């Protein structure tokens, strides 16, 4: 008998409807074959399904079984087809009754017949909403991801035998109610961060720059000698990230669900992502890719922060690949199988030494590099890439005496206070860009700048002077206005004053 089960896979972030057709033959040599371009992980589903059915106290049929994953021309991967195949076999043997309304089945089986947390359930929920499918059967560990969405019935399934009794109407599985308050979630006040801002002594100007960058989502580049605290500053900045807004949260959850980075039992992602990539990261690892494209680090830090330490150590190709996503906020990946667009509105924090030995411009230690070495080192950071970074700061070495002094300074801002500042200014921005799919100043398009930024006369005179004397590019001009807007937001000013522009300029003009 032939049974058709609905499930969904995804290509990039777009869900695909997959029909799992199962036929258990009355005649023919017993065997179990899966067709429809399965990859290795699906080939292995045979053994999982077989053992799971046996361990649910059902005899596996000694008959010829053919499973077709339609449409047959799309390559399939992943373990999500285990449950639809198992249910298809059982339904073909007339051991379970299929539900009357269209339903999705999704999930990986464990050998004991239990269901394991499977990635991509959030996308399955979206697919169900899109295609008008009422109920979805998913592993109980992943059910919270789908229950975030309204209008679908989510059944958390613990094991195959539980699902069989449910479908046969013996004992119903309680469906998970749509939890509107899941947006409120556990937004803990004290984030689990390595460093607090208050732990960083000195570096007041760098902290100020970091606050501005966080508030407006601007890219920031720190240069300084070894041990001056660049990495510490970046790590501490994870603690001043404001929580995600509801719309942002949905976008991030989508990417994390596809990547399988949502832990079992959890639903929406509330914490702003902070990702740091080592400099040996490959281009595909950073940008995303693969035959069936997967999101890279830049997409995983969408709406959050990507920290690249030791920027010049990254390979040239990797860094240049960042240029287009930095500007557009999306990355398009095209492979033979098709083209995928991943969102990548991330804020870049980059750190570097000024030269190979690291002490160029250090007041105490002499730099040992030849001019040629310095040139070679700095030429790794190309002009177009640096042009896309709004805030450039120097992080000089801290005076040791200052570090050792025991008198504590109460005026040092701690992370919590800075976070409140940042959140406040983000709220102002959220209100300003409502409905525009722009969340922070850094993502403003030029037309938005014309629409929203009120520059006073004095400020625009100053800006004009700066553009002329420093030969700034058009992009830099607009980026300075964006940073000025963020500084104005931080001081809760409705207009951009000349002192705001002056501060923004100071972060922009690099001392060559």
């Amino acid at each position, binding site marked *: 008998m032939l049974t058709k089960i609905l499930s969904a896979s995804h290509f990039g972030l777009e869900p695909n409807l997959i029909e799992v057709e199962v036929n258990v033959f009355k005649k*023919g*040599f*017993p065997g179990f074959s899966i067709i429809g371009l399965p990859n290795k992980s699906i080939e292995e589903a045979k053994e999982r399904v077989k053992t799971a059915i046996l361990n649910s106290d059902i005899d596996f049929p*000694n008959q010829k079984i053919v499973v077709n994953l339609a449409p047959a021309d799309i390559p399939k991967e992943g373990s999500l087809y285990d449950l639809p195949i198992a249910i298809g076999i059982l339904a073909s043997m007339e051991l379970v009754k299929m539900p009357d309304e269209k339903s999705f089945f999704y999930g990986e089986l464990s050998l004991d017949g239990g269901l394991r947390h499977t990635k991509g359930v959030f996308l399955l929920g979206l697919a169900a909403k899109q295609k008008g499918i009422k109920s979805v059967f998913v592993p109980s560990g992943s059910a919270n991801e789908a229950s975030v969405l309204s209008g679908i019935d989510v059944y958390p399934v613990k094991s195959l035998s539980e699902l069989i009794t449910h479908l046969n109407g013996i004992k119903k599985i309680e469906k998970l109610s749509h939890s509107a308050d899941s947006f409120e979630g556990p937004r803990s006040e004290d984030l689990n961060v390595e460093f607090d801002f208050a732990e960083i002594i000195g570096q007041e100007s760098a902290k100020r720059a970091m606050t501005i960058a966080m508030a407006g989502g601007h890219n920031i580049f720190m240069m300084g000698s070894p041990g001056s605290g660049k990495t510490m500053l970046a790590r501490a900045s994870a603690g001043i990230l404001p929580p995600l807004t509801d719309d942002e949260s949905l976008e991030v959850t989508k990417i994390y669900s596809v990547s399988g980075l949502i832990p079992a039992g959890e639903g929406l992602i509330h914490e702003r992502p902070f990702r740091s990539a080592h400099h040996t990261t490959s281009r595909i690892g950073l940008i995303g890719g693969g035959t069936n494209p997967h999101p890279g680090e830049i997409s995983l830090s969408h709406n959050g922060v990507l920290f690249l330490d030791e920027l010049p150590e990254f390979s040239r190709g990797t860094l240049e690949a960042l240029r287009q996503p930095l500007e557009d906020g999306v990355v398009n990946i095209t492979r033979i199988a098709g083209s995928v667009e991943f969102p990548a509105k991330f804020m870049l924090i980059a750190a570097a030494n000024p030269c190979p030995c690291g002490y160029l411009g250090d007041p105490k230690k002499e730099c040992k590099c030849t001019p040629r070495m310095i040139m070679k080192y700095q030429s790794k950071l190309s002009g177009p890439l640096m042009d896309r970074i709004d805030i450039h700061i120097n992080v000089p070495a801290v005076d040791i005496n200052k570090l050792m002094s025991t008198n504590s300074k109460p005026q040092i801002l701690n992370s919590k206070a800075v976070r409140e500042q940042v959140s406040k200014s983000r709220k102002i921005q959220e209100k300003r860009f409502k409905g525009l799919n722009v969340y922070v100043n850094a993502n403003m398009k030029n037309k938005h700048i014309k629409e929203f930024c009120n520059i006073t006369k004095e400020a625009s005179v100053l800006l004009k002077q700066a553009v002329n004397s420093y030969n700034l590019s058009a992009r830099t001009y607009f980026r300075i206005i964006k940073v000025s807007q963020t500084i104005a937001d931080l001081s809760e000013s409705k207009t951009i004053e000349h002192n705001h522009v002056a501060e923004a300029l100071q972060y922009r003009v690099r001392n060559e």
Partner: protein
Amino acid sequence: MKQFNRLKGNQGEEMAENYLRKRGYEIIVMNHQTRFGEVDIVALKNGTLVFVEVKFKQTEQFGTPEEMIGKNKLNQVRRTAEMYLLTNPDIAKKFDRYQIDAICIVGNEDNSIKRISHYENIY
């Protein structure tokens, strides 16, 4: 042990032979061996040359005989069958259709047959 396996195999093949004869098959050759392997039975029915792979298991406790015939075994039988056709052109010329069958036999403890299943054209 090896000898014992051989003995059981012969026992199974005998059962299969009887089974086929009863159903009107003409047995051409038993245990045809080539360097690729062995075809247990070459038989004839309704103008089709049938190569039969026989699997005999005394008990199903350690798996069904069906499970013991995998892709590789089938390929081996096919290659052996082709070899047979090449080396016996006078037989091969007479027929234009060939097929591979499997006969799976499960025995009881007292050497009687518990079940015998015949699967036709399984390649």
